[in-house]
């Protein structure tokens, strides 16, 4: 059980998303960095898709009101349990009364990231709605009462004290295990979308070769990017159609908007490309003000990237389970 001590944190309960309700206009929501949630869960021996707290604004503080194993993954936010500094991507045991503080993510390390994830033993215990514990902010359901967490909120862990869990070990973050850069900037692979060829040659070239800055008008709904204005050969007026997170829309102003986890499941702006599913976590962690690059990829490469990510998770789980199994015997 944890008590939220921070006000105005914009933190939400998220799992790996709510698929299967697009037909009713319900987008998938879910963690902006699903690998961080999966990683934190496997450190605790949770189901991979157990719910966690996504923390986008810092500092963030919670008090444990019961003994509980936990893990903090995602951005390295100089986490402290009372006055004990914690390592990033690490699992630890909290005693009732202890306060966990997450600070502003470090920007001087090997990976610049913007969101941290707090996982609890067994996962965050909130009801499933339409098959998921993710917060659906637009529809005001899911997570904790369909809203961001507030000071004073209490969240239960599914299995806080169950079987003395092994803690005090961690994972090498996927940002280091699965690096992807272009000219020194974080890169995301993109598959061209239906309207790609309706853009000028100069626009297409700029899309791939120039850095894109993540503006302050970026959030879980979409990342508004700043860079060269992308121009179609002729004005494009579209019929409303289904879209998914990762779709890069280009409104008439020419500045692209990448649809993110809380994006509408349909839209009518032209689309130049889609960030592949395997790379959405990279974009979800890119800080406001940072610059990124898009890299053109193929269907086969994109599928291979998904498989590579799955292999990283499977291997991490295998090693963690082996280690936790050894601990149980000794």
């Amino acid at each position, binding site marked *: 059980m944890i008590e939220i001590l921070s006000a105005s944190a914009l933190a939400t309960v998220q799992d790996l998303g709510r698929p299967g309700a697009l037909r009713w206009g319900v987008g998938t929501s879910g963690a902006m960095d699903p690998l961080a949630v999966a990683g934190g869960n496997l450190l605790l021996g949770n189901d991979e898709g157990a719910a966690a707290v996504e923390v986008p604004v810092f500092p963030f503080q919670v008090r444990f009101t019961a003994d509980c194993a936990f893990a903090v993954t995602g951005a*390295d936010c100089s986490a402290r349990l009372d006055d004990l500094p914690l*390592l*990033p*991507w*690490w699992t630890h045991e909290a005693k009732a009364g202890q306060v966990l503080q997450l600070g502003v993510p*470090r920007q*001087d*390390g*090997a*990976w610049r990231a913007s969101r941290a994830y707090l996982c609890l033993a067994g996962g965050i215990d909130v009801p499933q709605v339409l098959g998921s514990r993710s917060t659906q902010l637009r529809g005001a359901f899911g997570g904790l009462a369909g809203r961001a967490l507030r000071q004073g909120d209490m969240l239960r862990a599914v299995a806080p004290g169950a079987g003395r869990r092994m803690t*005090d*070990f*961690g*994972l*090498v*973050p996927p940002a*280091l*295990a699965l690096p992807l850069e272009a000219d020194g900037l974080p890169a995301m692979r993109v598959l061209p979308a239906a309207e790609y060829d309706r853009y000028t040659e100069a626009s297409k070239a700029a899309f791939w070769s120039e850095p894109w800055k993540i503006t302050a008008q970026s959030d879980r709904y979409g990342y508004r990017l700043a860079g060269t204005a992308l121009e179609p050969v002729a004005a494009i007026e579209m019929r409303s159609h289904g879209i998914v997170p990762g779709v890069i829309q280009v409104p008439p102003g020419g500045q692209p908007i990448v649809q993110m986890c809380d994006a509408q499941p349909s839209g009518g702006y032209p689309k130049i490309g889609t960030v592949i599913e395997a790379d959405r976590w990279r974009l979800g962690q890119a800080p406001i003000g940072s610059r990124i690059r898009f890299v053109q990829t193929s269907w086969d490469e994109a599928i291979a990237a998904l498989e590579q990510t799955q292999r*990283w998770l499977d*291997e*991490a789980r295998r*090693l*963690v389970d082996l*280690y936790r199994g050894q601990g149980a015997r000794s």
Partner: protein
Amino acid sequence: MKIDDVQQLSAWLAATDIDLLELRGPGEHLCLRRDGARVEIVPGDALEDGPEQTAVATAASLGVFLHGHPLRGETLASPGTPARAGQVLGLLQIGALLLPVTAPAQGIVQAMLVAQGVTVGYGTPLVELRLL
């Protein structure tokens, strides 16, 4: 050192959980040892008579020894730094897994016995500590 200072230091030491305070200066060597709530002044020379107690943190498995977390630039411990029992002095990387290399007892780090990034086997001595 004046007697007032020593009393001041003794009182301060008694209120902490530090077991030993060692002061060296030109021509002076003073040790204050806390024994429960009592503080006693141990002649510096007396301490140097006994053999040095050391302890070694060893590798719990085959893996790569890291001096710091790969996300961070700083090392976790270096010669001369004090360490509590259980404090993390380094990391052992086994694929995606990172295990802590911890101080077996309270002491002062004497030496990192294996360089950063070297693959070690089960039982390899990694960090030497001088016990207090």
